[in-house]
């Protein structure tokens, strides 16, 4: 009865009664609203996130939604990676070196205390590693950076820690930069929702569903941060997060979309995420390298970046962006050449490849801004090259069944859209997963390619860098499992009252101590 009448009313006509009704109700609440929208002072920094952290457990802080609050605010690691230079810098450890092939020795900072008053020492560092890596807790960081490998740790004296790895591990200090140090009083049998750390802020309150408040801790070993408090709220709609910046309700808003049109209140930063299609090369028609090359030629990356992402993303030629150890700066991406794509498909067809076999383009709904539009563009462009593409938009859990092994085997070839973030800064975290023939997120590889990867993984210094650069070139040349699309750019909303320059790690670890009030 009512819905059938909708088309009779143009949107402009419908608006007025709505606004009138709202205005009526608005009168009662305006005074409260004004007092809440007070501008930021140095007392509290107000941050709005995309979701409530599921937990603040330190050993799960590699999860973006947890780490953005905890890392380097509440807890600190032994060493940290400088996102600008890629170099490791001292934090709770002042120096470290490999004392043999499999042993790393760390010298720890003196005079550091945990927020519960207990001293930080080698015993606490060893406890942290044992708790996160060698226990049955099932910490997310364990799988993320250490795999099944157990580490042998030893507190030699109060300020000396040795870590022994089963195999030589040239990037152990980098791995340890993901481990946030907790005191020995932390539970070893259960995860802890509100951890104690050595950081500049401690957790004051967590009003579940509504707000987390951190407060500056007087016993911090380093400089006192400018903001006395940090208040975190969360809204799942990016347009609402953006509105909170515009209306003065928040000082920093994470994860905005180009559509939010923030103007000068939006700050771009490279977020180290890369978008690519991963092609299942074991099934027709993607089992022919010419078809996989054709997919690469058929995608108009420049057009996508410019029209969908306002030119803010960068066309990608590999799975890692500039700034990651192993990024190959000389690698040229695939040109957009539809004729070439068509002729490659025709060649494959002439050789007996069933190029009409269906390819499922598997895409995760709402994984990043404009993903639906991007998927539709890709479907159209691949169809123009003569391929039979069916678009499958899935929610996260279903998408994951396609993303990690074991892959579903009951349908034709899959081209999976993947958004890969390398937050560690080393290409090993990319190629081991995506390119080894047994990698958790890899469809296939070759013995020669596997050998190259293993060699690079074990190398250090320039050999390591060169090794990975060669791997990215080899994938584009001989393997072609991927059709790279773009390196993404993140947007943070920032009120004029805050001085802060986001960097590639801001999405995972938002350091409140790096922010100052604008005078």
């Amino acid at each position, binding site marked *: 009865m*009512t819905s059938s009448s909708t088309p009779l009313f143009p949107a402009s006509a*419908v608006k007025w009664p709505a606004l009138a009704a709202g205005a009526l109700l608005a009168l009662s609440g305006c*005074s409260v*609203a004004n007092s809440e929208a007070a501008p930021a002072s140095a007392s509290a920094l107000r941050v709005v996130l995309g979701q409530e952290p599921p937990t603040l457990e330190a050993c799960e802080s590699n999860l973006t939604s947890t780490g953005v609050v905890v890392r380097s605010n509440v807890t600190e690691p032994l060493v940290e990676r400088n996102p600008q230079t890629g170099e490791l810098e001292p934090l709770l450890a002042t120096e470290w070196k490999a004392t043999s092939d499999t042993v790393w020795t760390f010298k720890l900072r003196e005079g550091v205390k945990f927020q519960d008053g207990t001293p930080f020492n080698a015993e606490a560092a060893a406890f942290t590693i044992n708790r996160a890596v060698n226990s*049955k807790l099932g910490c997310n960081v364990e*799988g993320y950076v250490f795999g*099944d490998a157990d580490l042998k740790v030893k507190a030699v004296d109060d300020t000396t820690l040795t870590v022994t790895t089963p195999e030589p591990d040239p990037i152990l200090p980098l791995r340890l930069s993901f481990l946030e140090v907790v005191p020995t009083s932390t539970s070893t049998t259960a995860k802890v929702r509100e951890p104690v750390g050595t950081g500049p802020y401690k957790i004051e309150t967590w009003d579940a569903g509504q707000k987390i408040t951190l407060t500056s801790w007087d016993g911090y070993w380093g400089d006192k941060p400018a903001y006395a408090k940090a208040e975190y709220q969360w809204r799942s709609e990016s347009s609402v997060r953006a509105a909170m910046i*515009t209306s003065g309700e928040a000082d920093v808003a994470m994860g905005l979309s180009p559509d939010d049109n923030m103007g000068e209140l939006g700050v771009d930063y490279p977020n180290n995420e890369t978008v690519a299609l991963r092609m299942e090369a074991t099934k027709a028609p993607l089992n022919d390298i010419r078809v996989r090359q054709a997919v690469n030629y058929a995608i108009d990356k420049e057009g996508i970046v410019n029209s969908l992402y306002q030119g803010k993303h960068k066309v990608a030629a590999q799975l890692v962006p500039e700034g990651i150890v192993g990024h190959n700066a000389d690698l040229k991406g695939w040109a957009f050449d539809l004729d070439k794509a068509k002729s490659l498909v025709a060649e494959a067809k002439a050789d007996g490849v069933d190029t009409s076999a269906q390819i499922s383009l598997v895409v995760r709904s709402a994984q990043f801004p404009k993903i639906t539009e991007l998927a539709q563009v890709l479907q159209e462009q691949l169809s123009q090259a003569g391929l039979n593409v069916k678009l499958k938009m899935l929610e996260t859990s279903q998408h994951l069944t396609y993303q990690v092994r074991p892959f579903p085997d009951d349908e034709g070839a899959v081209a999976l859209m993947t958004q890969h973030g390398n937050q560690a800064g080393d290409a090993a975290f990319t190629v081991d997963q995506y390119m080894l023939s047994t990698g958790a997120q890899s469809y296939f590889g070759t013995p020669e390619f596997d050998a190259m990867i293993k060699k690079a993984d074990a190398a250090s210094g320039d050999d390591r860098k060169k090794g990975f650069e060669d791997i990215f070139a080899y994938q584009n040349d001989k393997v072609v499992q991927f059709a790279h699309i773009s390196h993404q750019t993140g947007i943070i909303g920032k009120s004029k009252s805050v001085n802060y320059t986001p960097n590639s790690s801001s999405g995972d670890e938002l350091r409140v101590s790096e922010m100052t009030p604008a005078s």
Partner: protein
Amino acid sequence: MLIYLRKRIISSALPLAVVIVGVFALARMTGNPASLYLPLNATQQMRDDFTARNGLDQPLLVQMADYFGGVLKLDFGQSLRTGQDAAAMALRAFPATLQLAATTMVLAVVLALLVGCWAALKPNGVADRISSFISMAAASIPDFWLAIVGIWVFAITLGWLPTSGVSGAGAWVLPIATLLLRPFGVLVQIVRGSMVSALSEPYIKLARSRGAGELRVVTHHALRNAAAPALTVAGDLTVGLVNGAVVVETIFGWPGIGKLMIDSILQRDFAVLQAAVLLTAVAIFALNILIDMGYALLDARVRPVTAKA
């Protein structure tokens, strides 16, 4: 009345059990949550550990028996996502939804009665036309759109209200205004329709001929008889709101049960989903009993029938 209540409670137990079993089985058919909770490069050993740690390696019937055993002891399990007690999470979210739903429905009913009666006094008069335009528009506007426009107008442009959140009275205005519009629009039309037919009944003429004032005629004689259809529809609309106003909760960051249920489904957080569904199901059964009792209060003819049911 007590016999009636007892019968209703007993007859509600079976549907409740069906709901619990259904949600339990259907949720598990959506797959193992391991890959959602472990890093992408987790080894098979880690996946197996996760599955075993959370009892998901047991046969479905064993899992279900464990679950029911827990429910009887009021233990609803732990959230996979937050590690918290699932029942506590559901119980924390539910009042936020209830407050929102109750305020919205009270306002909607009061406003709809006023506007609906006003419109029914002179069918096809000016008041009737204005109210039918307003009510149709109100019932047709998509809430998502209205919420965003509301934020844009009242929070950004005018700066009168906060964009979202739950702190302060101002934060209630936009969520309630957004939620209110559809029930209001629907109810105005129902009230108007049944009031128009009630006002043309012979007993109204009789009441008027006896010299009853217009206010008394409308409220005491006509409205009492016209209220039953409105109560039915208002009941349905309330049930919809108690189930969670997902769009409003999502946009305004309102920590209610609808958002909690959607998040638990997407995150395969089975224990929380089950606790939330059970809680809302119980609430909706209770609500239905209240609505039935409301009929009995309104209309004496219904009483003996419900009492026997």
